[in-house]
C-alpha cells in the first residue's frame, strides 16, 4: 500500500493544475517560450500579460503590474489554446446513447434552420476531458443522423456554433459560424442518388432563399411558388447568401471539390471545405480561391471510391501550396482529444512544425471567423492559452496550465476521477468510498 500512496503523491505532484476555477484577475505568464501564432511570432523567453479575461501584452519586455499573479513558465512552451474541429463536443455526450446526441436531426423537418447552439450542454463530461488536452475552444458541427442517403432528406445539416471550453455555464462563443452541407457520395444520396441532382438542387435552394429575402411580404402573402424549404431554413440561409456565414461543405473527390468551388463562385458564397482527402490534387485551385480546408490528416486509405487518392501528406502538400489547413483527428464525436497528435503525425509526414500548430490554432480561427478573439496570443484577444510540459504536438507534452478567458481552469475531469478512485481503491474500502 505504501507504493500506491507514493504513486498518488507523485500523481498529485505531477500535475500543477490547481483545482477549481480561479478568478479572472491580472495574470503574468513569465519566462515563457511563446508561440504567438500572430504578429509576435515566436518569442524564446517572454511574458503574456492577462487582465480581465483578455490578453493585454505579449513580448520579451513587458512591464508586469504590481499585484499581478505570476505563473512562471520556467522556459516551457506557451501556445494559444487549441481549437477542436471535426466534432460535436458539447452537443453529444455518448454517441451510442440516443437522448444525449443533440448534434443533428434525421429527416427534418428543419434543415438549414437546425441551430446547434440550442443543443449545447455546458455540463457535458466531455468538455473537461477536451480541456485537459490543451483545447480551449471548439467548432460544434451539425451532423446528419440516421442512415446514409437511403432516404431523401434535406441537403443542409444546419448551423454550426463555436464554443469556449471554459468552465461555467456560458460556453457559446459564437453561433452561426458555418452552415453544414454534404457534397460527394452522401450529398448525392440526399439529393436523390446522383451527383447530377446535387448541384442543381443546391442552386435551387439558394435561389429560394434569395427570393425569400428579397421580399418576405410576397412570401407571407403566398405570392410566390411553394418553397421546398421552411421559413426557418430560409431565414437561416440569409447569412449564407449575403456572405456573412460560410458553407461548411463535406467533400472528398478532386472533381467534387472543383464542382463545389465553381458552385461557390457562381453563388458568390463563402466556402470552408471539410474532408478534402483528394484536396492535394486541386491544391492550386484551393489556394487561388483562398478556400480554407479542415481535414482528418490520418486518412490515407481508399476507404471509398471518392477517397482513392488519400495520403498522409495531404496536409503538407496543401500547406505548401498556400492553402489554410485545419487538422482534426478521425471523426469520432468525442475524438477531439486526438487533435494535437494528429497534427504531430502530419508533421511527421512533412508538414512544418509551425504549420502543424497553426492547423490547430490560428487556421481554424480564421476559417470560422473567430480570429478576432481566439487562435493567437495577441493583445485584445481572449486570454486562452496553455503552458505545456513539453512539445504540444507530441506524446511527451501535456498541458500543465490551461487558461481560458483569463481564468486558470481546473485540472480535473471525470476520467481523472475514475483513475484516482481506482488507484486508491487498493487501500481497503470499496471504490465507491473513494
Amino acid at each position: 500500500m505504501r507504493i500506491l500512496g507514493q504513486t498518488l503523491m507523485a500523481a498529485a505532484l505531477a500535475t500543477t493544475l490547481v483545482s477549481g476555477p480561479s478568478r479572472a484577475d491580472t495574470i503574468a505568464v513569465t519566462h515563457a517560450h511563446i508561440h504567438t501564432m500572430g504578429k509576435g511570432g515566436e518569442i524564446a523567453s517572454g511574458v503574456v500579460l492577462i487582465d480581465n479575461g483578455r490578453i493585454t501584452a505579449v513580448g520579451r519586455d513587458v512591464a508586469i503590474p504590481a499585484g499581478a499573479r505570476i505563473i512562471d513558465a520556467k522556459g516551457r512552451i506557451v501556445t494559444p489554446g487549441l481549437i477542436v474541429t471535426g466534432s460535436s463536443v458539447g452537443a453529444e455526450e455518448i454517441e451510442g446513447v440516443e437522448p444525449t446526441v443533440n448534434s443533428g436531426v434525421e429527416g427534418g423537418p428543419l434543415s438549414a434552420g437546425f441551430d446547434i447552439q440550442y443543443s449545447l450542454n455546458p455540463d457535458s463530461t466531455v468538455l473537461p476531458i477536451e480541456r485537459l488536452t490543451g483545447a480551449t475552444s471548439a467548432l460544434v458541427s451539425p451532423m446528419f443522423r440516421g442512415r446514409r442517403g437511403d432516404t431523401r432528406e434535406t441537403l443542409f445539416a444546419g448551423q454550426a456554433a463555436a464554443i469556449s471550453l471554459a468552465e461555467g455555464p456560458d460556453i457559446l462563443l459564437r453561433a452561426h459560424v458555418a452552415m453544414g452541407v454534404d457534397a460527394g457520395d452522401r450529398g448525392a444520396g440526399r439529393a436523390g442518388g446522383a451527383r447530377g441532382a446535387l448541384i442543381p438542387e443546391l442552386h435551387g435552394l439558394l435561389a429560394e432563399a434569395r427570393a425569400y429575402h428579397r421580399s418576405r411580404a410576397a412570401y407571407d402573402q403566398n405570392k410566390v411558388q411553394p418553397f421546398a424549404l421552411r421559413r426557418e431554413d430560409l431565414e437561416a440561409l440569409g447569412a449564407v447568401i449575403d456572405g456573412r456565414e460560410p458553407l461548411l461543405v463535406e467533400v472528398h473527390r478532386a472533381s467534387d471539390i472543383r464542382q463545389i468551388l465553381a458552385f461557390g463562385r457562381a453563388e458568390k458564397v463563402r466556402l470552408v471545405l471539410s474532408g478534402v482527402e483528394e484536396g492535394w490534387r486541386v491544391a492550386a485551385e484551393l489556394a487561388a480561391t483562398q478556400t480554407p480546408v479542415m481535414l482528418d490528416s490520418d486518412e490515407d486509405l481508399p476507404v471509398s471510391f471518392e477517397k482513392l487518392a488519400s495520403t498522409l501528406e495531404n496536409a503538407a502538400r496543401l500547406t505548401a501550396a498556400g492553402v489554410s489547413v485545419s487538422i482534426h483527428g478521425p471523426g469520432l464525436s468525442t475524438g477531439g482529444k486526438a487533435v494535437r497528435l494528429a497534427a504531430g503525425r502530419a508533421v511527421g509526414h512533412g508538414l512544418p512544425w509551425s504549420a502543424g500548430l497553426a492547423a490547430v490554432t490560428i487556421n481554424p480561427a480564421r476559417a470560422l471567423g473567430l480570429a478576432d478573439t481566439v487562435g493567437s496570443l495577441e493583445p485584445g484577444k481572449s486570454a486562452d492559452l496553455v503552458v505545456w510540459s513539453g512539445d504540444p504536438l507530441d506524446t511527451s507534452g501535456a498541458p500543465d496550465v490551461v487558461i481560458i478567458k483569463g481564468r486558470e481552469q481546473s485540472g480535473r475531469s471525470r476520467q481523472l476521477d475514475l483513475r484516482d478512485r481506482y488507484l486508491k481503491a487498493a487501500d481497503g474500502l470499496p471504490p465507491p468510498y473513494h
Partner: protein
Amino acid sequence: MKSIAVLAVLTAAALTLAACAETGTTPVTGTQARTADKPAEKTTDKTPPKPLRAGLDPWANPDPFPSTYRPVPSGPTAIVGATILTAAGDQIDAGTIVMAEGKIVAVGKDVPVPTGAQVIDGHGRWVTPGVIDPHSHLGVYASPAVEAQSDGNEATDPNTANVWAEHSVWPQDAGFNRALSGGVTTLQILPGSANLFGGRSVVLKNMPAQTVQQMKFPGAPYGLKMACGENPKRVYGSRGRSPATLMGNVAGYRAAWIQAAEYLRKWDDYKAKIAKGEKAEPPTRNLTLDTLAGVLKGEILVQNHCYRADEMAQMIDISREFGYHIAAFHHASEAYKIAPTLAKEGICVDTWAQWWGFKMEAFDGIEENAAMVDHAGGCAIVHSDDEHLIQHLNVEAGVAMAAGNRAGLGISRARAIRWITANPAKSLGILDKVGTLEPGKMADVVLWSADPFSAYALADQVYIDGALAYDRSDPSRQPRSDFELGQPGPRDLMKGGNR
C-alpha cells in the same frame, strides 16, 4: 424438479469438460493430425474399422486451410548504432542487431557484424520488434468499404462459431500495406462483435500476397471471437430474439458450451468404442461445435470483446464452469477496475488509450488503462480495431505510457514496448516465435526514424523474417495492392516524410 434436473446435467457436463480441458493444451500446429486422435490399430484379428470419409472426423485434419506462407529469401543484415528496445529486457543504447536466414542471430551492445552482412546505419534511430496488432478487421472490412466487401459480421445467429474470418479476408485490402508502413508485421483478423460467438480468427504475417493462405502465420493457433455486452443484445434483441439482455447473453454462452461438451463426449465415446474394436455410429460433424470443442480442448484461444469490469468477471466464471481459459479481453475499457484479478487469471487486456465514450459500455474508459493493468502485473496490450489506428499503434502506446507516467506509475519505454509486441504475441500463442528481439526468433524488426513513442516517428524499414518488406526511402519496397493500380493518386503517394 425441473431446475434440479437441469443442475444435474450442468454438473455432469462441467465434469466432462474439465476432463477434456486437461488434455491437449498444445496449440494445433502444422497439418499432422494428433496421434491420440487416430483410430487405434490394435483391433487384433477383426477387420480394422474403416476410417471415416475425409471431412467427417473433425480431429483428422485440424488444419484444412494450411498456411502456404514462405519467407522472402534474404541475406544477412545488421543494424548498427541504434537504440534497441527488445521487449525482453532493458533498453540498449548504441546497439547492434544481426539477422540471418530469417532469424534474429544476435542483439546487444558489443555484437560483431558478420562478414558479408548488409550493414544499416541505425545511429539516431530506434529498433523494436515488429508491431503485433491482436485486433484487426483488415481484409474482412476492407478498403474500399463498400457493401460488397462488408464481410466481417455473420450477423445471422448469436452463435456463428462455424465461420472462419480467413474465408472473408481479401488480401488486396490496401490497409495491409498501410499497416506495414506503420511497422505492423503480424496481426490477428477477427470477425465482428455482433454475435455471442463471432467465429474463428486468423493470425497473419503482414506480407503482401494473393491468397490468405500465403499470409497465414505458420503454427499460430486459432482464436474464437466472443462478444459481451451491448452489441449482441442490440443486434438480436432488435429482431425480437434472444439475446435481448445481458442475462440473455450469458444464457447463450452457457447453452453453447453445454452443446460443445456434449459433442466432445459423443466423439470421445465413439473413439473409445472404435479403439476397442466395437461398432459405433460416428457423431455428425458440426462446424460450430468443432470450434467450441477446440476451445475446450485448449487448442483454440478465446478472444473476448468485453468492455465492462462486471461482465469480464462473469465471463471468467463461465470459463471456470466449462473448463477453458480466456486468452484476452478486447477493448476492456474497465480493466483497470479489476486489474489485479485479470493479472492473477493470466488474461491479457487489449485496449486503447484515446478511444472512449462512444457508447455506454465505453463511458468509463481512461487513458491510463494499459498502464494500470501493467502496474498490477498484468498483460497489457494496445490494439487498434481500426484501419487507421493500426498504422500508429506506437503513438497510441506512447499516449498510454505518458498518461501512466503522469499518474506516477513509472512506465519505461522498455516496458511499454511490450504492449504492442511481446504481450500481443503472448495473447496469440506465438511468443515463442515473435514479439521480442531474441536470438532464434523470426526476424520481424522495425527500424524507426525516432523514438517510437513519438508522434513524429516513422517506420523507416520493416523486416519480416529477415526480408526487407517495407522501406520508406525505396519505392520498390513499398507494396501496393492490385486495387490501387490505375487509380488516381497512388503513384504520387507515400514519397516518405521529409522532416
